[in-house]
């Protein structure tokens, strides 16, 4: 791939090198750069197209509901995924069941598609649990837990992918059992040293993995140009890892590119980077105020590139009627209502749970501190002294 000077001028925009399949108004007009990925669309049916649309709409609805729940004091925080649905739906469907996903903290669409109960995401953001779901339970589709420390999961994914390789589970030629790993991170996180180190290890070990960078233009208030003067898909090439830029608001392009790169990884051809150019349509989180740092013109511009509208136009062009879209909207409303109901039903876990799972093996300090807390808290009910001869939350005898 070539990097001309004008490409360096704007790292946020698309260029001739960008893979795009659907135009902004939903016409099927692949760019030249898309040519090598198009075969991956051949196997998709109209049902698939509809499922893509349906998932984008349903999770947007859930995301909006979660944002409202946070505003109503039901959640500690909510990082909205709104605007990034196409990149997430496309890449999630491109992964095979045996693949493993390392998300960041905004991959609500990916997680949901892989089988994670959205209520488990809600539970994390409500502060009921630090991880929400069991990443080893098959029902969660090999989605590892969310990571709030930026970039760190890139190394975890790379280590996991090294393990896949050591286990001989990539490059055997078996479509059913060869595995790949995909890790999600943001334009901001790409600056963390951990991400560069992950590139180094991945390049060194030729890991079966895809780095999926959602460039949503912003890291809270910091524009992507502060992170990189070159388009981010070029970041990995110096590490010996090829990169490709895709229009992340184009679900078909996102699907095709990810499907191909994951195939390459499974086939033993090594790692790659995908930069999905998209936009965070909402605030960074519910405690953020984007009016302090970005203009309404910019918001307006990107609202005009809404990934859901694009897919709707595409489907309409293929003869899907208004009633079907209305039905999806209704389904999304029901889905959100269900989440809201279940969120309001959540109860705080028992206090003693805070001592569980700190260690695998018995640990004297844990047992003692747990016992102390139980006695202490009970002392308020029964009005008896907490007492302790050993604990140093207590300590003095």
């Amino acid at each position, binding site marked *: 791939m070539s990097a001309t000077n004008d490409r360096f001028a704007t790292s946020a925009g698309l260029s001739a090198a960008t893979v795009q399949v659907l135009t902004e108004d939903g016409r099927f007009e692949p760019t030249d750069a898309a040519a090598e990925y198009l075969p991956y669309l051949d196997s998709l049916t109209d049902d698939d197209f509809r499922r893509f649309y349906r998932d984008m709409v349903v999770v947007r609805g859930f995301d909006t509901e979660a944002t409202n729940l946070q505003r109503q004091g039901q959640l*500690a925080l909510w990082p909205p995924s709104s605007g990034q649905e196409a990149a997430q739906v496309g890449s999630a469907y491109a992964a095979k069941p045996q693949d493993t996903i390392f998300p960041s903290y905004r991959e609500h669409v990916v997680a949901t598609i892989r089988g994670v109960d959205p209520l488990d995401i809600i539970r994390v953001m409500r502060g009921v649990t630090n991880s929400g779901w069991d990443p080893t339970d098959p029902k969660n589709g090999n989605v590892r837990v969310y990571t709030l420390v930026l970039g760190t999961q890139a190394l975890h994914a790379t280590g996991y992918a090294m393990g896949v390789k050591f286990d001989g589970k990539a490059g055997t030629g078996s479509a059913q059992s060869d595995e790949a790993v995909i890790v999600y991170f943001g334009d*901001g996180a790409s600056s963390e040293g951990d991400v560069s180190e992950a590139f180094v290890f991945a390049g060194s070990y030729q890991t079966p993995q895809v780095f999926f960078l959602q460039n949503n233009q912003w*890291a809270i208030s910091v524009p992507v140009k502060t992170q990189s003067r070159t388009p981010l898909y070029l970041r990995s090439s110096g590490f010996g890892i090829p990169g490709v830029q895709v229009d992340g608001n184009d679900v078909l392009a996102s699907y095709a590119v990810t499907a191909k790169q994951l195939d390459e990884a499974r086939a033993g051809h090594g790692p790659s980077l995908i930069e999905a150019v998209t936009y965070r349509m909402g605030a960074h989180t519910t405690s953020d105020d984007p009016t302090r740092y970005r203009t309404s013109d910019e918001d307006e511009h990107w609202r005009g590139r809404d990934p859901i509208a694009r897919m709707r136009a595409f489907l309409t062009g293929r003869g899907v009627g208004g009633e079907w879209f209305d039905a999806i909207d209704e389904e999304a409303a029901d889905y959100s209502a269900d989440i809201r109901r279940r969120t309001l039903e959540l109860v705080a876990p028992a206090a003693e749970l*805070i001592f569980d799972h700190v260690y695998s093996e018995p640990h004297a*300090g844990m047992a003692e501190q747990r016992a102390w807390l139980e006695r202490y808290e009970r002392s308020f009910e029964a009005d008896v002294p907490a007492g302790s001869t050993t604990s140093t*939350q207590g300590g003095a005898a």
Partner: protein
Amino acid sequence: MTELTLAKAITTGLADALEADDRVVLLGEDIGKLGGVFRVTDGLQERFGIDRVVDTPLAEAGIIGTAVGLAYRGFRPVCELQFDGFVFPGFDQVVTQVAKMRYRTQGAVKMPITIRVPFGGGIGSVEHHSESPEAYFAHTPGLRVVACSSPQDAYSMIRQAVESDDPVVFFEPKRRYWSKGEVVTDVSAVPSLDRARVVVPGTDVTLVTYGPLVQTAVDAALAAEDDGVSIEVIDLRSLAPLDEDAIVDSVQKTGRIVIAHEAARFGGIGAEIAAMVTERCFDRLTAPPLRVTGHDIPYPPSELEDHYLPDLDRMLDGVDRVMGVRV
């Protein structure tokens, strides 16, 4: 004298520091247009420009590591780390470089770097946003580690930290950012950065704490008064070095000490103080030093943080115990 929130007191202190010395530069994530996620640097970029209030790329090792280079060049960097749980990507630079440069160069190169860290829990947030990592830093020779607790101290201490030729890790009690108090901006008469402060005088028990729990300790002292127990509350302000004499003077009077912090107990600041007091006041103690701290567990999910965080009742329970009211 003006009434300011603790956050605004730091803002004012930083503005005055930028004004006073044109080698002072601020570095951090989102500190420019956004004014930081807690708005502590609100308006400073607009006022002082993008070369003095720098929105950095998203990399903590980068922030601290480039601050080392800027310090080499004669600047006085003030770094903001966005949350307590996100200091660790920059931790290597702090421990291996910032803390040791002066020693390594036998005084030829100073590191007048201030590292601001909003810390502590009680704000109902998600993982990594409520931690108290101060002991890691206090354990590192070469660093000064301080925690402010009131708007006045927030102002004075940030001014002193920026002016100090030593690196200062400056902990800000994020759950007290919005508490208000009178602030005077003349720092000529304020105690130096390494001094503790008696916040409430008392005679029966010394209650030592810092940062977010100072207010809790003051409330506990008030509550204990009703039961006829006189608590002397000491705000450490400086965690490294410790103002040992201030603590010892108090314990010589009271004979009892309770140390409170949100951080886990094991290897914490409380352990250091308990050992020091035992060494220096052994004969005077009428009860063993006692710690009221977070449990030795990772910070729990926020719905359960009340079971983790020392509060007024836990402090009073500790006071009761050193008083022999409870066993």
